[in-house]
């Protein structure tokens, strides 16, 4: 049984993480494409349309892979997590159903028009197609985050006589406070990915001396979007997300920081390795008081340590959670610094001549993907040992009759298929970059 739980978790974690590489890029690019199309329309400047056309092609590829890797996740609720589906489906079925009805249909109807219809539609209606894709993809994001928010911080439900969770208050469930904050934080993370990708290609072409007009536009758009999004993903959205974890998931906050002892003036650890056996953090480099401030807004406030909680309520895989959080926060800080520097050089008019900075921007594009994945590691490992926080343990959510042999088989199948899919995606994106703007 323990084995089975491991394989179910590995499969969902792997397929979800791989999937989310693509939606974060499409959602980030959707925003940038709308802005580019909007500027092209407002200023009647074809340079913006050329830029939008290029990114729509990347968007189309990323969207296609996002769609096909998203389908398995919808199925896996039933195939791998049957007892969870039976337990919570009466509630989360709402948002998953709404996602299909309100987001997927919208996206599928306008995708072809956005990707292939520029000439047929004309500038105004093509802008509307871009807007529809932006709305659809961001709406889809909301329904998924709202589903996840119920698992993080369940509201709007009641426990029925048979023990299952059923919907009690639709609006409370849909506009769960947790969902709104997590959503804003998540979408700003997607915008960071989009901004960095656009800036990176601009930097690459500038360094190469290729497509200079478009490269300058990409740099400008990417740096502005990347800088704003990097700020917003930290403040206020990340900050608020941290505060709600501090409020509703106290053992999670303690585990994220490798904190065992309670007390005021809690330190934020910059570096250190959690030692679960010894219940301490090894080799810590810490800033006193900062964790108290982040969690509760005052340096002297008390932050509980893991010792306060029974061990069966500690997040499992504590080390992974700890590193996920520190990677996310560390990278987020670097993003602000890098984009801030790039924005300053741009304002000064020297960005295109500052080659080290261009190199840094070019090489930085994978890191938002890592930071976003690390963020979801924090959310999902932080939720442990619960599947629905405080209501159903992860071990109680699996499909009981599926045996490990089947789950290992399908997990390996996904590993192979997704490896090929990833290669194909990189190959096709590489070709588009090689072709350049048209």
């Amino acid at each position, binding site marked *: 049984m323990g084995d089975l739980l491991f394989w179910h978790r590995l499969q969902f974690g792997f397929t979800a993480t791989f999937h989310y590489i693509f939606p974060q890029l499409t959602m980030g690019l959707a925003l940038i494409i709308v802005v580019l199309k909007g500027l092209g329309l407002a200023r009647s400047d074809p340079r913006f349309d050329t830029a939008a056309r290029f990114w729509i092609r990347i968007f189309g590829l990323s969207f296609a892979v996002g769609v096909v890797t998203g389908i398995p996740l919808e199925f896996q609720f039933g*195939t791998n997590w049957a007892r969870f589906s039976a337990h919570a489906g009466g509630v989360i079925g709402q948002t998953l159903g709404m996602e299909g009805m309100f987001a997927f249909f919208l996206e599928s109807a306008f995708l072809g*028009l956005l990707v292939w219809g520029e000439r047929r539609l004309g500038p105004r209606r093509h802008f509307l197609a871009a807007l529809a894709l932006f709305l659809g993809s961001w709406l889809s994001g909301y329904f998924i985050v709202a589903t996840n928010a119920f698992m993080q911080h369940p509201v709007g439900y009641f426990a029925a006589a048979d023990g299952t969770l059923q919907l009690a208050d639709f609006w409370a469930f849909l506009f769960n406070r947790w969902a709104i904050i997590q959503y804003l934080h998540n979408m700003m993370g997607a915008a960071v990915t989009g901004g960095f990708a656009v800036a990176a290609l601009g930097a690459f072409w500038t360094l190469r001396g290729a497509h200079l007009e478009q490269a300058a536009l990409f740099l400008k758009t990417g740096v502005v979007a990347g800088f704003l999004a990097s700020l917003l993903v930290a403040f206020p959205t990340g900050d608020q997300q941290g505060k709600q974890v501090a409020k509703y998931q106290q053992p999670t906050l303690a585990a994220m920081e490798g904190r065992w002892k309670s007390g005021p003036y809690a330190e934020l650890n910059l570096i250190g390795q959690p030692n679960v056996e010894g219940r301490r953090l090894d080799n810590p480099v810490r800033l006193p008081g900062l964790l108290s401030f982040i969690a509760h807004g005052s340096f002297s406030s008390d932050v509980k340590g893991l010792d306060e909680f029974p061990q069966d309520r500690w997040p499992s895989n504590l080390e992974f959670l700890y590193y996920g959080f520190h990677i996310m926060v560390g990278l987020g800080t670097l993003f602000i610094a890098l984009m801030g520097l790039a924005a300053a050089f741009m304002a000064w008019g020297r960005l295109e001549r500052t080659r080290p900075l261009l190199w840094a921007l070019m090489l930085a594009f994978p890191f938002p993907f890592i930071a976003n994945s690390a963020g979801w590691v924090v959310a999902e490992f932080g939720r442990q040992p619960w599947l629905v926080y405080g209501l159903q343990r992860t071990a109680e959510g699996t499909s009981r009759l599926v045996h490990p042999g089947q789950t290992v088989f399908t997990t390996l199948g996904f590993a192979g298929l997704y490896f090929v899919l990833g290669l194909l995606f990189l190959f096709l994106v590489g070709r588009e970059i090689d072709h350049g703007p048209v």
Partner: protein
Amino acid sequence: MEMLWFWLVSVMVAIYAVMDGFDFGAGVLHLFVARTEAERREVLAAIGPLWDGNEVWLLAAGGAMFLAFPRLLASGFSGFYLAMFMVIWALILRGIAIEFRSHVRDEMWRAFWDRVFAFASTLMPVLLGAALGNVVRGVPLDATGYFTIPLFTTFGTGNPVGILDWYTVLMGLLVLATLTAHGALFLAWKTEGVLHLRCLHAARKLWPAVAVLALIATWATAKVNPAVYHNLPGAPLAWAGLALFLGGLGAVLAGLLGGRHLLAFLGSSAFIIGILAATAACVWPVMLPSTLDPAASLTAYNASAGAHGLRAGLGWWVVGFPIALGYFACLFRLHRGKVSAPGEGQGY
């Protein structure tokens, strides 16, 4: 309320079968009816703007089933574990085959993806048909409400049952033939020239086979699960479904003979909806029968979510469903008329 949701889910499944059905059919046929690059692109141009939306009906129907009948989704999906992953993988291969094909102008690249597209499009209807067969025949549900079933046992329909037996394979073939014939009519309606003629030719060959298979399947169903027909006398919707089924067949015949291709396509759509409606009306309220103990069957009553959830779901469903239909109406209008092979870089 349970009955309403049973029918809402059934309607969405039927729309899915009709809509994704024709692009499955196009996928099965395209290697045979479209032989040149231009013809292949015509096929893709016909289904290109629609297939993704068509597939969303599967997710929307699944979502509706999740919210209304969570225990059915939990039990069915985990019970059919390996078959479900075949569906998932087929959908992945199909999706990327259509989307990636046009990105590289190379004969071998395109030949490869065309075959992937054909393979996945052939596999899907067989799997859907086998699924329908399993739902009619029943699965070894016990009192816990869960089951596990091997891919195959003795290919007989008695216990221990497997996902594939002679009956479910027959249903797989019926659905494959039906959706291929359905796709042939769609392509005949949307295309011109030699492609159009080849599709008509395929349709004329396929529809008699569909009629014969449907007849055999009707007899086989009576043999495998006679209880299905016990409901028939008292189920007006089953008679309506049957009428639609026969009327659809008549319309296909009339359309093919009279050269009215839209009529033929609508006829085959009615044929599919009719079969599914009659089946749904006959099995009501059972959604997944048990081969071990009829009392362990999952029904619309014992698998449903709480009353408030069903009402809330209905609240947004009546808003979302017309919007979704509206998108399709717009898409069909925008892409009305015959398709022509799009130029390179201008579409699918």
